[in-house]
């Protein structure tokens, strides 16, 4: 998913890759692939946006489709949310760090996040973290 969806930046930051419609200017995420691909220009979103809503996933998701550790003993709840990038687009993503510190409207940076998979490897995805805040 890397490069098609996001690119890594320095100090754990990331930039979200989206598509901008060549005629209408509409921004969509993820950037369409296949038949519609040529209609969209590849763009990078600004490095940060604002938190529109969020929640904490306390019930372990099933595998598949979830690739993370979901056994009752080892499952770690995680936050997810929608981040608004101006009036262009909202992106749903994992939120890194302490869910208790989250407040709707706060500034969020695009970052990378790695989480362990049951086979001992890890999966890296884009995520968001409170701007200038501590990250776990």
């Amino acid at each position: 998913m890397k490069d098609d969806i996001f690119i890594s930046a320095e100090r754990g930051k990331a930039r979200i890759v989206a598509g901008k419609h060549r005629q209408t200017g509409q921004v969509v995420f993820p950037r369409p692939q296949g038949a519609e691909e040529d209609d969209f220009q590849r763009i990078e979103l600004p490095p940060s946006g604002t938190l529109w809503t969020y929640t904490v996933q306390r019930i372990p998701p099933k595998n598949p489709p979830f690739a993370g550790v979901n056994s009752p003993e080892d499952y770690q709840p995680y936050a997810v949310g929608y981040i608004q990038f101006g009036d262009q687009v909202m992106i749903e993503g994992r939120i890194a760090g302490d869910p208790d510190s989250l407040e709707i409207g706060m500034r969020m940076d695009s970052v990378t996040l790695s989480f362990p998979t049951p086979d001992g490897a890890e999966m890296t995805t884009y995520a968001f973290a409170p701007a200038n805040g501590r990250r776990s």
Partner: protein
Amino acid sequence: MNDVYVIGAGIHPFGRHEGKTGLDLGVDATKLAVEDSGIAWEDVEAAFGGSSASGNADAVLPRMGLTGIQFINVANGCATGGSSVLSAYWAIKAGEFETALAVGFDKHPRGSFNPDPVRYGLPQWYGETGMMLTTQFFAMKIQRYMHDYGISTKSLAKVAAKAYDQRSVDAIYVLQPIGGRGRPDPGV
């Protein structure tokens, strides 16, 4: 346009019922609804219904009796029951039928739903990273709603308590036309 009335309703109790299939629950509810209506099954002219995990809802037909009516299977996620009622409402309102059945039933394994993201037009990573969850989506929706309208967690808890109270999910209906301005009454 015909006025549309709910003339009968039936419900199987919620819960985990060992030894009964989802279809069994649907057939029980259908029988209760027909009995409640006071008309015979043979007088039901059309049927709409759905099930997510318990097969095709039209399997109710052979159990009720093959009267030759059309049964349209409806698949609209959590809104399948509502969409079935709406379909029956439109069919009667349009004058195509005098009577119709709307039915929905399901049995799910414990834990979260685990749909295949690709079947929903979503990339596989959407599920792999832990975002393909129905309750998560609804939680985020209500979180924003609470923020916008100043709703407290206590108010939300009261709504949840009401919804979990079995008495509130017992079938209710009123003998007055549903609809008005082209929309079904949300209270029915």
